[in-house]
């Protein structure tokens, strides 16, 4: 499963920046506001090509992981340019190689639309997050609006071949993994959300 996911995102790395450029323009301000809550030892999931590193507050110590080595290769220059310490590591979000309660903040950006077993991944986050820590998640989810949800369901089998699932119940998955949602903002319709959660 991890190998398939790794290969898919290695392939996607070639066009990732082009395919997500307009989303960066649109969502940059909302992400920046969410990232203002980053404190202490930070973990970023699904670093991608590093496009979000410039939105992080300066001076933090961050470990950013991704399942794709090619994504991380493209992210490396942005990691070096960060005004703080930002280390990169290739890792599967479903099997984190960190000790329990290692991090004070975990940031995820469009991650749990792609992790093959999202509840398993979120349980891993719960494990490595300190009891007083925060999960700051910028995720797209399945809409509660019938016609839009139907479209997301219909398009997901197609999209899954080259990118993320469109119809994940990430808020429900957070609850199933033991998180309690503190705040939730709709960034676009009820599909793109900024979420702040704590270990429940």
């Amino acid at each position, binding site marked *: 499963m991890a190998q398939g996911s790794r290969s898919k995102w290695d392939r996607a790395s070639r066009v990732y920046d*082009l*395919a*997500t*450029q*307009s*989303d960066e*323009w*649109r969502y940059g301000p909302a992400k920046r506001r969410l990232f203002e809550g980053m404190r202490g030892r930070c973990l970023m999931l699904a670093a991608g090509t590093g496009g979000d590193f410039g939105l992080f507050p300066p001076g933090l110590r961050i470990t950013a992981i991704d399942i794709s080595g090619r994504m991380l290769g493209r992210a490396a220059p942005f990691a070096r340019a960060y005004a703080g310490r930002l280390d990169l590591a290739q890792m599967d979000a479903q099997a984190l190689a960190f000790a329990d309660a290692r991090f004070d903040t975990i940031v995820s950006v469009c991650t749990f639309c792609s992790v093959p077993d999202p509840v398993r991944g979120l349980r891993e986050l719960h494990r490595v997050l300190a009891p007083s820590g925060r999960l700051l998640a910028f995720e*797209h989810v399945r809409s509660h609006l019938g*016609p*839009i949800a139907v*479209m997301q369901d*219909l*398009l997901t089998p*197609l999209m899954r071949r080259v990118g993320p699932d*469109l119809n994940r119940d990430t808020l429900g998955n957070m609850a199933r993994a033991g998180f309690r*949602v*503190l*705040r*939730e*903002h*709709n*960034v*676009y*319709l*009820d*599909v*793109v959300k900024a979420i*702040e959660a704590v270990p429940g």
Partner: protein
Amino acid sequence: MKRFLTLAEYGAGALVALATAIPIHALVHPGWDVALAMLVGGVIGMASHALLGSVLGALIGMFQVMVAGSLIGMYGGMFFAMRDAMQAVSWTQTNAVAIVFGVVVVAGVQLYDRALRSRVGG
């Protein structure tokens, strides 16, 4: 940039609607079974949206194009096919109605987005 992207959403909506209405108008004629025509229209609309959306989504915003485009493609495709099965219309009317339909759906989605864009918990 924000204003440009907002305007581009309208352009994308009109394009998806045209790409849906034109093949349907070429294929479906008065006398078709309306239910069958609607089914064909929905499929053509979804295909048009999927093809155009993958390109336009990267340029304008994946979800902005996907949400409005899928509504235009599937439901617009059904409406256009139902009309073409029930009455003879010109190409000019076909294209004009498609553009209006696309723009109205995008406007509706943008209004709904504004209504939903808020803190919903905590």
